[in-house]
């Protein structure tokens, strides 16, 4: 028992846990590379990333909502709804205006969520559950539960064709959004204030931050990202369907949480979400190449998710330390200096 406690308290263990996204991503890649031939080829990576892009856009929106201490279950339904608008309005409005309307649907749907949570003060879990049912039903009502197809299948190539033979348009968009989100969360005042709102809305309010505006904005952003994902997905397959994105939010939440963002709010990062998404993409690709049945894949993802949040809990309930890689390096450096000083002073 004392030895376990010792291991749990050791600095190396803390460092491993704190940087677990990197650890688990590298180990997934190593396992994938040893089991699957051609796993590290560029083409495999490009394909895997392309498939992850839609999920990634939803996860970017969720990262912001989760940091603000809220939850958004409605992303998948918003995705389907804006996809239907994008495809269904093509014949009346033309392709690009229809895509813009699809985007606007995402923004509006996010605003509905924001209204429910911020103005009516409904708990976000229940509020987005209600809007999830509402939007999904709207999709079925508009399309009469049938998938609809667009006017020109070649138009979707904008998002699904590799740019310069490397990554597809949507992959590039996803990476650009991750970088922007990272810069916003770490460099902008508004980004820092979002963390304050997520940790404690009341005290953030007391410090002069307009908490409610941030919460509302978080939901609009999440809805918009789901809208972007919906436009891209429906364009790439030239179809709008009421059943698109049925499981996407659960996977996106898993990716964001694997990336170290906490559901309680106030902690998280864009790069962590990127790590979580890459992990899930690598896992899925590796297991599909090995023809592992879908339900076994679910078990693996679930176990990893559960172990990570359990680890997170174990560590954060013991004492808090700064164990980022930079801090570890500084500390090691400082202790060496100290020892040298002792040596010179001692005699």
């Amino acid at each position, binding site marked *: 028992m004392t030895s376990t406690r010792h291991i749990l308290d050791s600095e190396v263990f803390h460092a491993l846990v704190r940087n677990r996204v990197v650890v688990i991503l590298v180990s997934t890649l190593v396992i994938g590379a040893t089991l699957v031939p051609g796993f590290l080829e560029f083409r495999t990576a490009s394909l895997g990333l392309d498939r992850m892009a839609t999920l990634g856009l939803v996860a970017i929106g969720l990262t912001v909502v989760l940091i603000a201490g809220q939850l958004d279950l409605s992303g998948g339904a918003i995705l389907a709804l804006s996809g239907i608008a994008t495809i269904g309005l093509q014949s009346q409005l033309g392709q690009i205006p229809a895509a813009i309307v699809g985007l606007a649907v995402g923004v509006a749907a996010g605003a509905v969520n924001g209204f429910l949570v911020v103005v009516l003060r409904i*708990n976000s879990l229940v509020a987005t559950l209600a809007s*999830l049912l*509402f939007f999904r039903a709207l999709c079925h009502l508009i399309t009469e539960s049938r998938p609809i197809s667009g006017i020109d299948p070649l138009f979707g190539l904008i998002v699904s064709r590799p740019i310069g033979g490397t990554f597809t348009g949507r992959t590039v968009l996803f990476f650009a959004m991750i970088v922007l989100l990272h810069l916003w969360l770490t460099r902008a005042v508004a980004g820092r204030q979002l963390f304050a709102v997520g940790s404690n809305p009341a005290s953030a309010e007391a410090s002069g931050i307009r908490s409610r505006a941030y919460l509302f904005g978080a939901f609009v952003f999440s809805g918009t990202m789901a809208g972007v994902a919906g436009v891209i997905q429906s364009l790439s397959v030239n179809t709008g369907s009421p059943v698109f994105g049925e499981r996407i939010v659960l996977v996106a939440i898993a990716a964001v949480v694997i990336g170290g963002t906490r559901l309680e709010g106030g902690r998280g990062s864009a790069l962590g979400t990127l790590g979580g998404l890459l992990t899930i993409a690598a896992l899925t690709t590796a297991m599909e190449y090995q023809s592992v049945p879908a*339900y076994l894949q679910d*078990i693996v993802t679930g*176990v990893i998710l559960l172990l990570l*949040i359990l680890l997170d809990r174990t560590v954060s309930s013991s004492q808090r330390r700064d164990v980022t890689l930079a801090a570890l390096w500084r500390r090691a450096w400082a202790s060496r200096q100290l020892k040298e000083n002792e040596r010179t002073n001692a005699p």
Partner: protein
Amino acid sequence: MSAPTSQPRVMQQSVFARQGTRLALPISIVLILLVGALLSDKFLTLQNLTNVLINMSIVGIIVVGMTFVFVTRGLADLSVPATVAVGGLLVLGLQSSLGTLGAAVVGVLAAAIAGAVNGWLVGYAGLNPVITTLASGTIVLGIAQVFVGGVIVYGDDPQAQDFLTGRVFGVVPVIVLIFIAVVAMGHLLLSRTVLGRWSYAVGSNPFATQASAVPVRRVRAIAFLLTGTLAGFSGVLLGVTLQTARPGIGMGYEFDAITAVVVGGVSLLGGSGTVLRAIGGLLFVQLLTNIMVLQGVPTEPQGIVKGVLIAGAVAIDVALRRRGGRE
């Protein structure tokens, strides 16, 4: 949100707010019955109302467990679809080797184990219930599918099916009697026992309750154990009545149960609400659905009404509480 005041909040509540929150649900149920009777002459027939009750029974059993989760401030149990599927898949998969009754016991026990794991993770390890039950649900459903090979399972015991759908005295189906028995037991457990008192205490103020030497972690764990067990039981009933089960059999039951509990006025913040109110919420939703079906509204678009209903019910509840707290 509001600053702490010296007077107890109950004293400040206006009569309207207090009576409004308590009477809103029964009045709504009466109103919906009236509306239904006006819209369709088939609505108030014995046959139709019995059908409503049968439809309620499967979800209703889950609602009882979910009420405990809500009352103890456990947020929600999202692993319900998985535990329902475990019950349904196991009872039909093991039917040939163990007999229906033995298979049913195994199915409920397996779901209970899943519930106990949830309870341990949420109660003792202190994890966030939403993400925990999401993850455990994925795992449990995966394991259940490994067991049956990821395909649809068919049953071969029409007698058990006949028993559950058969009627006592030619009127009340057996499955409805089972449902009523579970509700009665759940209601007594929450309102008349020490565990029930503890559940309310844990939900209203976990820290003060901890300080009063109440086993907070155990109480919260029991709520999840109960939900898992009851969801498994309802999965068993579902499997036996349909004589077929696929892994996705429980999909949507978690949202239906949450809807019922929320419409029943049980707060997500814990510490209030009763089993009977949650069942009242379920009755209201089911009657509404029934009216829409009788009016020829297709299944999927009914979600529009349900979504508005959930948001509306909670918004009114929140508004009444705030109004009551201020005046």
